[in-house]
């Protein structure tokens, strides 16, 4: 029963979701909308699970005097400060509220800083990718050089053929490869969904036994 019930629920709701794709009638869509609302309700409860997990893991690190327990203190400081600030102001989303101030002036800049690191990582990854050690890497280097030149005015100044070559690279070989990958992905998704619905694939619930 511990395995049959999830499998049965998975089959019933999986088949229903597949059928509603072909049935636009409002009676069927009404039920589909209710399902999505249930999913949102589940998600709200799941965040509680996540918070409990976070607190538990970091509490254990502090209790066990783990070498990196200082970071756990930072986690607790951040977590409880934000919870506290959320309670201080009746509308914590209101502009100027302490919660909103902390979010805008601490979290947003920190996240932007993390995102901006991407520029440096792109440079280091490009340096590694463009070392022409193999035929594939050489082709990649040539294609990248043409595409980069074709995207800036100097490319057109050197030769009007460069932007044309850029367009051809992006619209013909690049798009062809992308579409090939996407067809495979689509079929892979369908096959995985079907195998889960039919109970053939059970790894998501811990295995096949």
């Amino acid at each position, binding site marked *: 029963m511990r395995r049959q019930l999830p499998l049965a629920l998975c089959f019933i709701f999986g088949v229903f979701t597949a059928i509603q794709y072909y049935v636009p009638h409002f009676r069927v869509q009404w039920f589909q909308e209710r399902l999505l609302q249930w999913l949102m309700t589940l998600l709200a409860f799941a965040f509680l699970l996540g918070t409990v997990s976070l607190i538990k893991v970091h509490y254990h690190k502090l209790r066990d005097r783990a070498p990196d327990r200082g970071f756990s203190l930072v986690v607790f400081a951040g977590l409880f400060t934000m919870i506290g600030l959320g309670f201080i102001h009746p509308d914590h989303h209101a502009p100027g509220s302490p919660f909103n101030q902390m979010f805008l002036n601490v979290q947003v800049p920190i996240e932007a800083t993390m995102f901006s690191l991407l520029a440096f990582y792109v440079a280091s990854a490009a340096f590694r*990718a463009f070392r022409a050690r193999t035929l594939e890497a050489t082709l990649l280097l040539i294609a990248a050089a043409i595409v980069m030149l074709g995207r800036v005015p100097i490319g057109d100044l050197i030769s009007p053929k460069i932007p044309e070559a850029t367009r051809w690279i992006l619209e013909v070989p690049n798009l062809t490869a992308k579409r090939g990958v996407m067809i495979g992905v689509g079929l892979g998704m369908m*096959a995985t969904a079907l195998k889960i619905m039919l109970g*053939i694939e059970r790894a*998501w619930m811990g295995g096949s036994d």
Partner: protein
Amino acid sequence: MGHDRGRLRGARFVTGFVAGTLAAAALVVCAATLSAQEPIEPAVPESLAAPELLAVPTGVQVEDTPNDRGASVNVTWELSADDESLRFEGYRVYRSAHPETGFVFAGRAGRGATTYRDSEAPNNEPVYYRVAVGDAEGGEAFSATSDAVTASPQWFNDDRVNVLIAVFIFVVAIVYFVNAARGGKELFIRRLAGLDEVDNAVGRATEMGKPILYISGLSTISDVATIAAINILGEVAKRTAEYNTRLIVPCADPIVMAVEQEVVKEAYAKVGRPDSYNEDDVFYLTRSQFAYVAGVNGIMVRQRPATILYMGMFFAESLVLAETGASVGAIQIAGTDAVTQLPFFITSCDYTLIGEELYAASAYLSREPVLLGGLKGQDTLKFIIGVLIVITVIVATLAATGAISNDFMTPLFITH
């Protein structure tokens, strides 16, 4: 003398009478003339005169929206001749159950629009539409009333017949190959270097005494790529349990975390090492994209994992993660169906599963015949799609050169 004075007085009297009579007559004539004329108004500049109404749209057509959930009507019209006038404020669509009266406002459309979808029409009741044009002064001019139309819901979306046929072929192919595999038929699956390397990567971590970091992307459980990542995690966890190697799984979604905790726990139990499972190693980090990156990068730098696996759906964080992993010297194996992130993983990781290989990984690693049957079903449909692409390319080329009629192409392409 007295007689003369009397005559003079009489003449004055007659003269006064005649003059008074004439004056009164003139006054009456003048008044009568004035009353017969139009009232005189002050002159008004032409620009301030009352504006004319705008030209109404013509050719108002209505139809029940095809393949919909009901309560929806498509209204189309031809542009008003004043569509580009500065006074033009837009089209207003009105609906009524009667062709002459009772029209109520249904919605509006802007300049240049020739369609409006009314999503509040009553089901199974005939209704009529008029399209009005409005001007800046609040004036409104109505088109002729449309024909009657009845909105109704549909039980089958016939735009999706082609998808249904493809799904039917797909299901038949998968069921056939799964049954063939169950019957003991040998199924050939090509080598996937990235998955062959998983065993080596786990062995390397064991030898080095370092953990393995498994990242299943930032998407939710409703994403099939995440489910594929969870399926792979089960196989990886079995190997780490066998080798008694620590497996760290930071999660970005609480539901994914709950499922992954269960999957890893089951895997450890299955290989007879339930006591080696540590729930604190499969934990929730955060939903925030770059806060998650900061957390995972911190784990990489502090724990120095020997192997890092990225499986599932990734976004802009892929390169930041993979480059940090490369910088700590870990063997990295990635698998994603996010086409835009593939180049980053290919650049920074040792092995990358491209697109569909992510979905094949669970079957490949487990080598369960039934799961391999599913892969062969996928290959069958891919072959059919390949053949169809070749046929349609040939037909399109012939049609373009005029060798065959363009009409021949129409049934081949359903473009909904």
